[in-house]
């Protein structure tokens, strides 16, 4: 009697700690931030003492020039960074999808940039962009060119931040597309070769379409992550010069810590969260759709067999 009760309780016992932690430290904070978006709240007050202002934070944000600026900086940054990374990463995967010695060592070296801390990535690039002792300006000078204002001018700083992010995250796309390439069915490649497809044709008409499900997921994962970029930019430019590199995550942090307006920061957080939620739902639906299609194809194949 006692043991059967113990057996019935076991699964709950195993699940309880995880459920408790997720509830207290993840779900509760998310509910809290939603509520805090309606408050006029500064860090010295308890949340109960904060004044309820309804939608005022959102309305103010909508009219706030600098918030709109950082909203568009974020969109521009994500769009440019992700398309560059997809292009370079997938290209490299096609280029390096060969039977060569030391491929696994190569992959190990390539994942280094995304394993090390974004803070360190920021440090390394800040040093390389340094106006006098940095690698880039030193090289330019020794080749007889003028030094460039890497982090000192708005457009240059934006480009510099993009270069650092591309360096860090191209490997992610490269690894995923290489894995996708290497799991493609060999028989299809063989058939294409026999039918006389050349390299470009087999990439364009056979490999790319077959990799599409993985590429779309990779694209969405990377897009979601690109909205979270904060540390690299914080170390490189701290959002400046002006607002040229101030992405939304950085703006949230500065609103909360420098301007001490927690309610406004919460409202921004909710806007960012909404954007990411849309992307995630899109990703989930796409996943489901491809799964369903694979299932249907399998069923058809089973019926024919």
């Amino acid at each position, binding site marked *: 009697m006692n043991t059967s009760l113990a057996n019935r309780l076991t699964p709950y016992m195993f699940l309880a700690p995880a459920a408790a932690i997720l509830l207290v430290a993840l779900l509760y*904070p998310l509910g809290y931030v939603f509520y805090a978006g309606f408050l006029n709240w500064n860090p010295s007050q308890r949340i109960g003492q904060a004044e309820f202002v309804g939608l005022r934070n959102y309305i103010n944000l909508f009219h706030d020039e600098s918030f709109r600026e950082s909203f568009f900086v974020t969109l521009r940054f994500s769009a440019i960074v992700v398309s560059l990374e997809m292009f370079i990463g997938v290209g490299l995967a096609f280029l390096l999808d060969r039977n060569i010695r030391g491929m696994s060592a190569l992959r190990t070296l390539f994942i280094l940039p995304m394993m*090390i801390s974004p803070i360190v990535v920021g440090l390394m690039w800040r040093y390389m962009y340094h106006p006098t002792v940095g690698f880039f300006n030193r090289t330019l000078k020794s080749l007889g060119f003028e030094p460039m204002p890497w982090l000192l001018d708005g457009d240059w700083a934006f480009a510099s931040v993009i270069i650092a992010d591309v360096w860090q995250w191209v490997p992610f796309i490269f690894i995923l597309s290489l894995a996708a390439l290497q799991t493609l069915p060999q028989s299809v490649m063989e058939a294409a070769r026999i039918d006389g497809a050349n390299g470009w044709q087999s990439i364009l008409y056979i490999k790319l379409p077959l990799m599409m499900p993985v590429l779309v997921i990779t694209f969405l994962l990377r897009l979601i992550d690109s909205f979270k970029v904060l540390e690299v930019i914080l170390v490189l430019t701290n959002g400046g010069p002006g607002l040229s590199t101030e992405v939304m995550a950085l703006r949230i942090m500065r609103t909360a810590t420098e301007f001490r307006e927690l309610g406004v920061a919460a409202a921004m957080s909710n806007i*960012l969260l909404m954007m990411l939620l849309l992307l995630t739902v899109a990703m989930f639906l796409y996943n489901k759709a491809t799964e369903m299609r694979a299932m249907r194809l399998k069923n058809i194949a089973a019926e024919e067999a």
Partner: protein
Amino acid sequence: MARKSYDKQNPAFYALLVALIFMAVGPIILMLSTSLKLTVDIMSDTSSLFFLPTIHNYETVLCNVLWYEPQGLDYCNPTFGRALGNSLIIAITSTILTLIIGCMAAYALVRFRFMGRDTVSLVTLMTRMVPPAVLLVPIFGIWTFQFQIDGTRMGIILIYVAMNLPFVIWILQSFIVQVPIQLEESARIDGAGPLQVFFLIVLPIIKPGLAAASIFTFRIAWNEFLLANALSNRNTRTVPVTIVNSLTEYNLDWGVIMATGMLLAIPPIIFTFVASRQIITGMTAGAVKG
């Protein structure tokens, strides 16, 4: 690895490979070499491939945890040594806790069929989506005013465990599914209780999954800046926080900063070299196999 022989490649291809490797690790090498230089060498006009390497910068930042008295150091700033200790404690504790709790939950989800894998996938995706910046305001408010655990290591550990749990549960699930149920049943028949089955039968089999999960958790806990910055005080600051704080100084000592950066980068680099296979498995698991 079915194919054992390697194809011969064009020399241009190897040139490209070398260029790519150079681009991938060049910045890291540059950081390492800068951290081994004295300020005079860093600032000197002749760009120097040849210099006398020195561990002076490392001695400067680690002065209070070294077993000997470093030479030629006027005064010892204990900030970094303390932060390194905090970082180690926080990252290791949160990794262990996440693994234990995550493992138990994953096991229950697979064996007792509570929720489908779909639900867990969805929750994982949802939490993967939440940026740390969004958690900043609520975590600050709740930790400070309600739980009153701001400024403690425990507070930082709690949020790291919560952030990593969904991914860990999700990845361990895919390993536990592969453990044959017959193995567990025969252990049950031999008289093992549910806890014994879990610890003595299941855990040893899913070691590769545990390795992947622990590396991902450790990496996030070790590298995270934003929430640690909001939750720590003077005594509990982690390494990323001290590095960012030191950047506000007017005259940056690049040698010293690069040494701190290098120390922060070393554990992830070691993991990458030791377990790149597991890391790649963990990375591709989500997208390639579904």
